[in-house]
């Protein structure tokens, strides 16, 4: 008889596995304080500093009743996680969410209007672009806790090879085209510019042309305005007329980030988050403001906001912590240590970066404009992106495409 040992091996292995993972409870040492759950999406380095800040806040005599427990959730999936947790009452007291998520939470009545705590007294201290991503129907439902924007990255080595001064990046769109033409060498496969074609990455174009995409009351889509059409025409011409853009937006093409690291694209839009990565890759690069258009230099805004949920029994201490966390001193320390942009205007006077490139982003944020605020930003992207692509590939004129997009946005997105 041939004996089969494999099931036994599996069985024993399974028993070991069961023994190793049986215990699924972790005891948290109780301190007698009321616990406030804070769901965040910070990475390791940020989390370490966050815990320091929390410890400082808890040490203040006024906060002796509260203990904040930071809980990390994955950024990919933080939206469904928060939605589902809130529906069954397992949500946190407050959370850090993507800037585009605040509107949905506010309109679905999930988070607290900060005016309850007198937010208008301190709202001036925040940079307007990130702050206004929290302004829904005239009220503030969250406060910015981290912000970014994109600026123009350029490869100094390619500038030198083309006999351009690497310390003089283009300042206006006209200069930009002129410079990029000198940097483009389609035979060698190097291009002056590589761009993405999603709405968020196109906002710098719209903003430098002074185009507003959604009206203040959130009822009308202004994508078909004259300024927006001009901005998109200009963007499309970089690829189709001036031939200085590599087509990096096409599916399967080399992405702007990858093309920049490998010296294929001389200039790209990118945010400060990739600065350490590019520095580690020994690339000789610089950062400049987005070239100025009719409305001057401007950019988009990214980052996260912090909201307090209505289901929280203790919203007040949550608010106190968030204001402490975004206060000028803490922000200055946080940003200096982690090379990030402060959300608090007053922090600008307290510190400066040694890295000139980071300083450029600080400058850029002052002129950044808040993004379009809609209930489902993903849906807005889904509607607008194909229309923009049709313009670049020459299937539609910018006016046609944006008129079409505007109607669709009003029917599908603004009606939510």
């Amino acid at each position, binding site marked *: 008889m041939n004996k089969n040992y*494999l099931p036994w091996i599996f069985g024993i292995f*399974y028993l070991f*596995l*069961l023994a*190793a*993972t049986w*215990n*699924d*409870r*972790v*005891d*948290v*040492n109780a301190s007698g304080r009321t616990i406030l*759950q804070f*769901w965040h*999406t910070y*990475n*390791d*380095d940020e989390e370490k500093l966050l815990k320091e800040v929390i410890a400082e806040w808890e040490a203040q005599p006024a906060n002796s009743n509260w203990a904040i*427990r930071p*809980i*990390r*959730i*994955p*950024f*990919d*999936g933080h939206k*469904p*996680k928060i939605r*589902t*947790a809130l*529906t*069954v009452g*397992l949500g946190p007291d407050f959370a850090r969410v*993507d800037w585009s998520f605040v509107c949905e939470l506010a309109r679905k009545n999930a988070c607290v209007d900060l005016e309850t705590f007198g937010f208008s007294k301190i709202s001036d201290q925040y940079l307007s672009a990130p702050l206004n991503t929290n302004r829904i129907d005239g009220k503030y439902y969250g406060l910015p806790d981290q912000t*970014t924007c994109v600026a123009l990255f350029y490869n100094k080595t390619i500038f030198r090879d083309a006999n351009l001064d690497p310390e003089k990046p283009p300042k206006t769109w006209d200069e930009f085209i002129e410079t990029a033409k000198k940097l483009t060498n389609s035979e060698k496969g190097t291009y002056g510019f590589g761009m993405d074609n999603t709405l968020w990455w196109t906002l710098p174009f719209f903003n430098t042309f002074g185009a507003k995409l959604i009206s203040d009351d959130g009822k009308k889509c202004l994508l078909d305005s004259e300024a927006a059409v001009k901005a998109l025409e200009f963007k499309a011409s970089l690829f189709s007329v001036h031939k200085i853009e590599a087509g990096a937006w096409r599916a399967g093409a080399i992405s702007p*980030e*990858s093309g920049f*690291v*490998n010296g294929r694209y001389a200039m790209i839009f990118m*945010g400060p*988050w*990739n600065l*350490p*990565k*590019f*520095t*580690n*890759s*020994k690339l000789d690069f610089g950062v400049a403001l987005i070239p100025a258009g009719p409305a001057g230099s401007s950019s988009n805004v*990214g*980052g*996260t906001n912090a909201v307090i949920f209505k289901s929280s029994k203790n919203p007040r201490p949550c608010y106190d912590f968030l204001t402490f966390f975004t206060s000028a001193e803490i922000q200055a320390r946080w940003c200096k*240590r982690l*090379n990030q942009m402060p959300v608090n205007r007053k922090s600008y006077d307290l510190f400066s970066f*040694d890295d000139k490139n980071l300083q450029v982003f600080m400058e850029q944020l002052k002129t950044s404009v808040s993004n379009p605020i809609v209930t489902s930003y993903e849906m807005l992207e889904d509607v607008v992106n194909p229309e923009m692509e049709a313009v670049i590939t020459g299937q539609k004129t910018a006016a046609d495409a944006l008129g079409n997009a505007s109607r669709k946005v009003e029917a599908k997105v603004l009606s939510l």
Partner: protein
Amino acid sequence: MEQSSAFRVAAFVALTAGMVLLSFGISGQIFKFGSMVLSSMTASSEISSPTESVPAGSSGMPAAGDPTPSVGGETPVAVGSTPSVGGGTLAAVGSKPLADGPTPAGSAMVLKSAATLRMAGLAPLANGLAALVSLILMAFVLRRWIATQADLRGRFLKTFFLYEALSMAVVVVLFPFFWMLCTSFKPSGQELIINEANPFDIVPNEPTTANFLKVLKWDKPAGAPVEDEIERKKNFSTYFLNSLLVASTAAFLVTLFSSMAGYVFAKKELPYKGYLFALLMGTMMIPGMMYMVPQFFMISKMGLCGSKLAMFLPHLASVFGVFMLKQFMETIPGSLLEAARIDGASEWQLFSIIIVPLSMPILLTLFLLTFLFHWSNFLWQLIVTDFANPLSITLPVGLALFRGQYTSDLGLIMSASCFSIVPIAVLFMIAQRYFIEGMTQGAVKE
């Protein structure tokens, strides 16, 4: 005849050249990978990850604090037999950041140099071994070619071509996995860089094991303050074991329940069997996403949120499994069961002695499919995970923790992915044997 033999020689030379190129390329990469693993393991085991040294460097003194002693300790080991050359290179690497001013990358670069230098030292060995492999292969092929009779050489060439084409296919299939392995050894910031001189050379020249150490939380120096229990448990080995338990339990139970139900639907009489089965099949029309929210409500009402049971409990009833097994079991002849009944077999014996062994291949297929489903079931496991308790985090969810809003730490994701493919590969290798065994069972009567 003359012409065709000349053509054969030409084809042979071309194929041999292709083989040498291929084997040199492949074995070169494999040996380089081996030398990389060796040098990174031995050189950088004590060094904390580069990202952690960045704040220390940016605060003014590039070589201040903790990293310095470990570098000093490593240098003599790394330099080894050629002290003058090694020392010179190290000094050159060290002085570059100083010339540019104290950049954050400075200290990280000095840290990496030990492994890089050692790898550079091993490079001739790796290349030599690769050349040796190609030479041996070439000699082998040449001997066979000479030993083959002239009229059989056409067939020889065909086989040769077939083997070469198959090797190419293997390379294409395994390349992504090799790339993943290589990326997991790359330091942060260099994951996307392509080697300009040779785009197929994907093994990093500056290897680091920091990614693996960080993923497993082994990167804390021994003297560091002991963190609390929760932080310590938040590592990939916990997630891995959790996922293994969830996926294997679910796969076993689904296979068990489906085989019982499939047996009843295939071989037993029961009133309205056809309608019942049709009703069951009807539920397959509804997309699985629709069940998610109700299932989540039920799980949270039961108070199971964050437990391992919640990860698979709603998925234990698998209509697809019942359907698949029923279709298979219907092909088992009923006379077998009758014969067993006459011999006095009980119902349980019928099931366990006749039905289960005969359906082994299909049971294993279902087991594998269910295992895979639970191994990578991100969304459901995400919403039932209690993130306050790292013991409830599973692998797909743990992997997602490495991705940020705009940046992903590719090195970390890749090194974590290396762990996640292991059980699947092992299962497939074991099951494949049984699969074929089951398929051929009873095919031949002797």
